[in-house]
């Protein structure tokens, strides 16, 4: 009935703008996009793969009695460290794929034709990535903690640290930082290179080749990667914590500034 009334009003050309209006249309658009992401097989697959890898790693850690992530019998801490790295990197790949898909579907063109402010569009994509990052971090950390607690309880493993120990908090925060930074890097790659595949390849080239293969070969660079910094914040590695914090912050600022500066000049010719 409501729809009929609306259509009828339009047919006679009446009220130009209806009284009701969303107070936060931008947030509403982000919410719709988040709903769309929840229906995408690639997103569900990434969540599932990461969850299975995390649970599998914790199970192996319990069964082999060798612990996980250098945390000994503390499977909760080990699980959270795995969530930070390499989990953050996996999330970055996912974000590059979902942000890049906007270019494949040309929805970027439809939205920029309505409102050509590039920074608003880039902000929209980054906000979507941030929502996805929070969902990822919340779901995966809950899983990591739950599975670890069950394994410890079921296997009679004494962790030696309470569930709310400061080390756990630090690992949880490190997992969030790694998720956000790698997510931002993935989004930046996709926005700058305007495509899912190009974004994923660029992120993997940087992270796998640059951070994990080349940087360790050259001592001055080894302690300055996001991977090493995130691992240190989660309680692994030997680089100073202050430097780890600086690297993560710098990576975030540079990725954000670089992607906004480059995307601001975007010409939509495709």
């Amino acid at each position, binding site marked *: 009935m*409501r*729809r*009929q009334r*609306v*259509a*009828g*009003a*339009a*047919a006679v*050309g009446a009220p*130009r*703008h*209806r*009284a*009701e*209006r*969303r107070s936060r*249309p*931008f947030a*509403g*658009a982000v919410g*719709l*996009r988040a*709903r*769309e*992401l929840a*229906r*995408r097989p690639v997103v569900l697959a990434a969540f599932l793969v990461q969850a299975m890898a995390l649970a599998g790693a914790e199970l192996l850690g319990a069964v082999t009695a060798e612990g996980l992530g250098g945390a000994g019998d503390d499977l909760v801490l080990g699980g959270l460290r795995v969530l930070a790295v390499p989990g953050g990197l996996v999330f970055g790949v996912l974000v590059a794929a979902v942000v890049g898909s906007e270019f494949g*579907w*040309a*929805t*970027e*063109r*439809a*939205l*920029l*034709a*309505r*409102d*050509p*402010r590039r920074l*608003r569009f880039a902000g*929209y994509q980054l906000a979507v990535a941030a929502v996805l990052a929070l969902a990822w971090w919340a779901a995966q950390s809950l899983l990591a903690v739950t599975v670890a607690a069950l394994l410890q309880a079921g296997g009679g493993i004494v962790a030696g640290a309470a569930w709310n120990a400061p080390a756990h908090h630090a690992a949880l925060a490190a997992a969030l930082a790694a998720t956000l930074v790698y997510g931002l890097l993935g989004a930046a790659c996709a926005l700058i290179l305007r495509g899912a595949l190009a974004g994923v390849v660029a992120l993997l080239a940087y992270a796998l080749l640059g951070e994990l293969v080349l940087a360790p070969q050259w001592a001055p660079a080894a302690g300055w990667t996001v991977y090493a910094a995130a691992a240190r914040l989660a309680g692994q590695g030997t680089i100073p914590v202050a430097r780890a914090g600086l690297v993560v912050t710098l990576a975030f600022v540079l990725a954000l500034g670089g992607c906004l500066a480059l995307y601001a000049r975007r*010409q*939509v*010719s495709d």
Partner: protein
Amino acid sequence: MVLAGLDLRVDEGELYGLIGPNGAGKTTALRVALGLLRADAGQVRLLGRDPRSAAGARPRRVGSLIETPALSPRLTGREYLLLIARWAQAPDAEADRVVGLLGLGRMADRPTATYSSGMRQVLATAAALVGPPDLLVLDEPTVGLDPGHRRRVNDLLGDHVARGGTVLLSSHQLDDAERLCTRVGLMAAGRLVEEGPPTELGPAAGRFEVTVGDPEAALAALRALRLICWRDNGKVLVETGAAFQVGRPDGSLIARALAAAGVYPSDLRRSPTLELAYAEVTSGLAPDPPRPPTDREARLEPPFDPPVAEAFR
């Protein structure tokens, strides 16, 4: 360089059509107008402002459809329209309004990935109408539509202009452009070659086609009024747009002249103008249009009554 020396102005309340061959620069011109592309030189104003500036952002006032429909496949049609409404800072009710306008019905609640190409085009057109906008910029809006939806979209464009809105569209549907547009611009090689009301463009401007049972009687009746006319493929063509024609007789004058002579046409209509104008622009590959006889032809085998033929000598 895709566009060169393009000087185009669309006034409020107009339905302006850009026509021209593929590669003429129509879509590029629309992209520049919308701020999707930056012009290397010159000045672009959309609703009086630079379309790329923050001050020129006018999400609710301009609706557009550029090239192929751009849809999120995992959203339903209604959700997609809702996304556009929110992006354009328009009320959510706008999504329902345009669903009704284009008769999307229950189709609107299915994921857009299941839509046919025609339905995708309809949905993209619906998205352009969210706002509702003051200005519509549409790139071939009826391509791929079935006749029903094509008529509906054309009617909506007419309604939009009737309510004071403005439309800038590019199209290869010359009959639609001729019927709908208040002005048409013919583009070729990045330039605006010709511009004006569609009935006044090209070699067939001001020409009427009359279908009668007795063409000779019709010719005699029309020539008695000193109208320039001739036979072509069983029809009588009446030229009213030539520079030497005194006054510009309209269809009613022709009908009255024929009726007075006891000749009743089964059909009387303006000749399509854009088709010939378009053919003229696109390198003359099309067959020559029917033309009035030359002076020499008129003298050798006069198709005109003596008084009219006199005018050529």
